[in-house]
């Protein structure tokens, strides 16, 4: 298979979405199996493309013969494929969790939604066209909202309705921004927009910047725009939590990068600068720092475990956005490490906390009591996940946080002050994670039965844990991945060149 069949990554899940609807009539297990198979294929194929890209550089897959900048094309960069593989891995583990559930009348629909989710995520990360990105963005939001509302209780419905409102307004903003770009530059190709963005007046640039901010910040769970998170996370089903907390966040971060850096920013002196009439980096850094603080404080006083994890997810996203706002090679490396840490460990946390709290009436901190005795495997998973999350030395989170501090301090200016604030706030994070872990160690007087082991959960959790440990303990491997991806992020020029002269490179 050549890289030109990259469209398969989008097409296969879409096709399967239809197929599973039909086949689901005969047997409800079939869609589930198809789901796992498709995701395995997608994961394999994306890693194959990743190796291809790492040797050949950025590749462009032209669709239906329209050369860029015309038509729709898929751009395969190291960065996007890396994140895509990560997303596939997460969806795979989430769907393993999903498969383990008993089948009911909803199974087929949910499988379809998961296919849709996969297709939308692939499209978002691969497309080289901004309007196409908008389309996938909407499909992605629709898939998310439907997944959240699956549980049909008050909280999930309220959460999904909030999400719907915010993302609809956001998409209107995005549409305005895209329209602005098209009206002024006359193109929709990301590479070409990126090439010619400086032609716009700084004021127009600032307008587009604000439109994009409004569009994306609710997806990246950043504070003033993220009021959907607690209800959504709390109300949603477990595998949806994994998808929301890990896969959606990664996708949102990718969009954030493309919109703000590939399109608006310009790498000057090894650092992205924004040629618009306001200090964009300051705004992003400020918003993300505020987001970190607010979510940490919110998490600190929460009792419900899912809510705590939701807030923590928001604060981690804030930290990654802060790393983005520093916008040099070091900070991108830090951001990538943090992204890996966030997605893998958050998935593990959701998964294992669900198992630990199984059978408890109130799903709050108290239901963690005595977890280690009841459910040693998942408690151990939870402990590993949260240690990585809070940055226990020599885990991914530790590397991420430390290198974030290093890059922020060397960037000096307001970043070094903000990073201090962020560090102080993340002490709160440590506190509530340790509070949860402490509950696991509490031994109960009445020895409760050991919870029945769910092997699907265990398999999916240990898969994620294995990836995390490999990343943390294989320095060469991780170093190569992170530095090539960060290098790819810094290298806007190559991206533009490769896309716009795609035919020369065939």
């Amino acid at each position: 298979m050549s890289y030109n069949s990259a469209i398969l990554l989008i097409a296969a899940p879409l096709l399967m979405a239809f197929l599973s609807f039909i086949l689901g009539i005969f047997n409800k297990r079939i869609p589930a199996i198809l789901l796992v198979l498709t995701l395995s294929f997608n994961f394999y194929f994306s890693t194959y493309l990743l190796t291809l890209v790492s040797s050949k550089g950025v590749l462009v897959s032209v669709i239906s013969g329209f050369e860029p900048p015309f038509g729709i094309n898929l751009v395969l960069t190291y960065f996007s494929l890396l994140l895509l593989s990560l997303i596939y891995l997460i969806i795979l583990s989430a769907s393993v969790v999903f498969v383990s559930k008993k089948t009911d009348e909803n199974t087929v629909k949910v499988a379809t939604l998961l296919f849709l989710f996969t297709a939308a995520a692939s499209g978002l990360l691969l497309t080289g066209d901004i309007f196409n990105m908008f389309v996938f963005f909407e499909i992605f939001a629709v898939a998310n909202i439907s997944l959240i509302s699956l549980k049909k209780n008050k909280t999930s419905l309220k959460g999904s309705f909030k999400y719907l409102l915010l993302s609809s307004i956001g998409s209107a903003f995005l549409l305005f921004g895209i329209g602005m770009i098209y009206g002024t530059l006359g193109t929709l190709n990301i590479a070409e927009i990126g090439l010619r963005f400086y032609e716009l007046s700084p004021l127009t640039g600032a307008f587009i910047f604000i439109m994009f901010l409004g569009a994306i910040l609710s997806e990246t769970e950043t504070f003033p725009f993220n009021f959907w998170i607690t209800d959504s996370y709390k109300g949603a089903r477990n595998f949806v939590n994994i998808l929301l907390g890990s896969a959606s966040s990664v996708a949102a971060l990718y969009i954030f990068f493309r919109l703000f850096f590939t399109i608006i920013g310009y790498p000057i002196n090894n650092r992205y600068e924004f040629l618009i009439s306001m200090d964009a980096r300051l705004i992003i850094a400020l918003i993300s720092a505020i987001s970190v603080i607010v979510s940490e404080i919110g998490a600190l006083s929460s009792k419900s475990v899912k809510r705590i994890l939701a807030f923590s997810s928001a604060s981690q996203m804030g930290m990654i956005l802060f790393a983005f706002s520093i916008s040099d090679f070091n900070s991108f490396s830090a951001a990538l490490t943090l992204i890996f840490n966030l997605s893998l460990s958050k998935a593990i946390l959701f998964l294992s906390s669900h198992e630990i709290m199984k059978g408890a009436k109130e799903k709050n901190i108290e239901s963690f009591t005595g977890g280690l005795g009841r459910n040693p495997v998942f408690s151990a998973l939870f402990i590993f996940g949260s240690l990585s999350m809070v940055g226990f030395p020599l885990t991914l989170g530790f590397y991420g946080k430390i290198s974030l501090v290093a890059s922020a301090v060397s960037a000096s200016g307001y970043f070094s002050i903000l990073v201090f604030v962020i560090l102080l706030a993340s002490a709160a994070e440590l506190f509530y994670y340790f509070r949860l872990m402490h509950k696991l160690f509490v031994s109960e007087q009445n020895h409760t039965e050991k919870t029945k082991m769910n092997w699907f959960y265990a398999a999916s959790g240990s898969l994620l844990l294995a990836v995390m440990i490999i990343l943390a303990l294989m320095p060469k491997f991780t170093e190569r991945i992170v530095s090539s991806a960060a290098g790819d992020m810094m290298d806007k020029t190559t991206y533009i060149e490769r896309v716009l002269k795609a035919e020369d490179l065939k």
Partner: protein
Amino acid sequence: MILYSFLFALLTALLSLFIRREYNYIRWILYSAVLASLTFLIYTMNGLWGYSESFKLLSVGSVDFSLNFKVTPLSWLFSFFTTGLSLSISLFSIVKNRHEESERSIGFFWLILSVCNIAIFLSADLLTLFIFWEAMTFVSFFVISPGWTKSFKAVNYYFILSILGAFAMLVGIFFLYSKSATFNIESNIAQLFVLYELNSPQAIFITLMFVLGFFTKSALMPFHIWPAEAHSEAPDDFSSYLSGIMIKYGLYGSILFLVPLFVFISKFSQTQPMSNHIPLFSHILAWVGAITSVVATFLAVKSNDMKRLAAWSTVGNIGYAATSIFILSSMGVAGGIFHIINHAIFKTAIFLSLAAVKYRTHEREMHRLGGLAYKMPVTFLTFLLGIIAAAGIPPLNGYASKWMIYQSLLSGRFPFLATMIFLSSTGAFMYLFRALHSVFLGQLPSKFDDVKEVPFLMQIPMYILMLLMVIIGIFPGTVLLPVNSILKSMNMEEIKVTYTTMYSMLSSVDAPIVFLVFAGSFAFAFILYLIGKPRRHVELLDNYTAGQDPKEFGLTREMYHFALKFYEPFEHMFDKYPRTNTKEFYDSFERKINETGSFIKKFYSSSPRSAVYIFTLSIVLIIIYGWLVW
């Protein structure tokens, strides 16, 4: 070699998790064996100054993570003594933890902690130091609070303060790193010195970050509240580790990083303000140490919980050591290091004897105890020698280091510091005697009539510690000669000392003579005692009661034990003055955060409309900002 031994210890810890609960003692014997081999390994490294090991980890962005270990006189002395002491504590724990419920996690994490402990002392650069510092903080959480609700509340102060301090230190490290592009300690000190000359405020900020990191860990003002909480609620045998060993990391860091820096400044700086021939900054830190010791002393006098009292005493002693270190003279630094080692020994002894008391009686409130000396003589003797050393009474090890501290304070002309140290030292005698009386002397409550001495295996570490206190008291040179090589490696003037005699500018002390004088006087008194008419033994309750029969008004032994509110009139002396309660301050801070948190939480779960409101508002704000900038 160092790294492999660490991995070996970690592996043992991991494997020991699979030992069944009935065979707890096997696990602890295993740990003791590992600690013994680690102690031996460190012992063999004596003299291999400069031996280093490096292990490369990930490099993210511009930061190369790697573990670097190096053996220096300073690191050797600290790691050897701490590991040896943890070995003796682990001997104690073999029996103590046989029937402990949450013992599995305690042991597992404790062994990891011991590895972190050695690694902190052996680390050759700031990043390695930070890595193990952080690991130590995280892991110690689970040992202080192994699933106990009460100790969880206590550990919070420790944990949050330590984490904030560690983060401050992290910021300091990376500020320096962004200037010097290396984590090496010496070059960073040099870099910071240069920064002092060029950009003084920034340099002071960086130093302050390090100071925060070290002081939170060593519980100096205003972070002095955590030991009383954490040390008293931790598992009893672990309290001795916490108080004897772990609280010293901050002072170790100060000796490693701050002292050379300040010495540099006092020698070469043209721009920094000086007072008493030392940099003003350092002088202030010395004052912080002295104030800490006084405050801790007064708080110790007030406490009725024996472990809490011992914890406050720890804070007080840390205060002396800090004062002594920060006056920067050779004598002061040597005295500080000496006192740290001595304190590790006698405080371990004190906490172990308290753990033994609690092991037999399950009581911690001092007024419920009493008279245990008649039942547990070895424990009593350990405690007695411990408090003699702690109060700095000759001829045990405590007085030797205190003598050095006074000499350095007096020869450096710090009269008021010396007075404060003296005040807290006398106060130390006061509250330590109270503990001695309330726990071991006076009337024995009838419920403890069947109490026995602890098992022999638990006595072994007590014997070892008593022996150590006496030997170091008689031959202070056993510690002071290695301390001298530390001074040499830090390019400081060596102090004049032999195995038996300590010299200062003001006077000299021959420790064996001090011991012999004491022994001689005692012999003299004993002869007099023999000359007198032989005494008659009388039951303890057969006592002077102003002529009344105790049985008549229902006097019990518990009632005849004067222990509660021992120094109450003294406490009331300060009633008139407004009191600042640090703990209350931290608690109110926590309440504020929780209130804010509830507010945020409420907002998050309110109706969808408010979400849209805030969304719109924020966009408008950003637009307004853009407008203003434009």
